[in-house]
């Protein structure tokens, strides 16, 4: 983590209520949050706690009823959809549970598209795409369509797409939610690797194993932050800890 005092992401007093059929659902009920450069933050909690809504607010996919968001110190309150769309190419990469790839575009085009839309010269977009796909073990899949890939591979393509413009912030919404345990471990390994290189990440997950890859875990209950804990992950905790869980008894 750097000493840069301006947080990558800051939110204050976020509130969002869903008005559907039946009673209004208060998904986010007053959330303050600050994410510093290089941090890897996981938000966990039961389904329906509002954690995905929170992530959508942070990525501008939904607007809060009240409260403010700052990206790199810049207030996003007045931003319209078009501006958010630009920022989601430039400053924020997002991966979703169901990948959301464009099904009739090849893997290569899916990854290059956000770069081209952001005005990157085609040659450089191709180079970035090639680097990322190699990094993510997807060489040889460039011409495949998303539907021809396994879930784990599709999520890696989605990760490449999210990172192709080198956004300062990566948002991940249940990225392993539709993957088996092998795919989950793979996502965990990749997020850890990008984080080690300085990528700032906010991850929403109900999976504690995935959350434990983060260095800070926020427990989200009923639209509010119930706990916000830094994980040390260094030396084993006092007393039992990991060895206590593993040890065979006499």
């Amino acid at each position: 983590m750097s000493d840069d005092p301006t947080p990558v992401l800051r939110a204050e007093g976020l509130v969002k209520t869903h008005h559907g059929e039946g009673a209004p659902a208060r998904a986010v009920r007053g959330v303050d949050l600050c994410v510093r450069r290089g941090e890897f933050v996981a938000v966990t909690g039961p389904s329906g706690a509002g954690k995905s809504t929170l992530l959508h607010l942070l990525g501008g996919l939904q607007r809060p009823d009240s409260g403010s968001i700052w990206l790199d110190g810049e207030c996003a309150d007045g931003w319209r959809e078009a501006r958010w769309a630009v920022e989601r190419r430039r400053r924020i990469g997002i991966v979703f549970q169901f990948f959301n790839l464009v099904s009739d575009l090849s893997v290569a085009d899916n990854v290059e598209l956000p770069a081209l839309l952001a005005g990157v010269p085609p040659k450089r977009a191709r180079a970035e795409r090639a680097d990322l796909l190699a990094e993510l073990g997807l060489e040889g899949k460039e011409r495949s369509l998303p539907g021809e890939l396994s879930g784990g591979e599709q999520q890696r393509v989605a990760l490449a797409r999210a990172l192709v413009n080198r956004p300062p912030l990566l948002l991940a919404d249940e990225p392993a939610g539709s993957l088996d345990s092998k795919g989950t471990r793979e996502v965990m390994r990749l997020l850890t690797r990008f984080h080690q290189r300085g990528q700032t990440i906010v991850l929403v997950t109900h999976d504690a194993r995935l959350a434990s890859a983060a260095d800070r875990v926020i427990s989200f209950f009923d639209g509010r932050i119930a706990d916000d804990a830094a994980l040390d992950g260094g030396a084993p905790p006092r007393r039992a800890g990991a060895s206590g869980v593993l040890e065979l008894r006499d």
Partner: protein
Amino acid sequence: MRLPLLALLARGPAHGYELKQDLELLLGSAYPQPNVGQIYVTLGRLEKSGLIEGEDVEQAGRPNKKVYHLTDAGREALHAWFEETEDEPRVRDEFFMKLALAPQTGLADQIALINRQRRQYLNTMRHLSKLAAAENRDNRVAHLLIEGAMLHLQADLDWLERCQEELEELE
């Protein structure tokens, strides 16, 4: 550790240090290794109860080493071990009692108890993730051991979540 040592001796005679190395190789670096002293003490007890027998083997220029082999009684004990199923993991542990009794004492807040316990579990989970990452990929037994520990912790974390949901509803 008695039965695992017996099980290792079912393959053939071995001395204490060999058994320690075999355990390390099998279970990987994540497993908290017994020290060689513990192993000698346990072997002594197993011999006393007639489950193994030791024979002194002379070594040039060094103290004798004791090579152990399984007795018929030891083999019986192993059969019985494999035959039995094991107890289920505990749920009603010390933490549960704290949670159940906290409101009556007025000395602790249930949500604070849950939050603290969750922090510890999450830290342990993180430590386990690091152990898994450091473990040799080909050692399946070691990885299964770590994964088992992680799944147990995940269940405990899910249960804490349930407790918190129930208790916050009451507020």
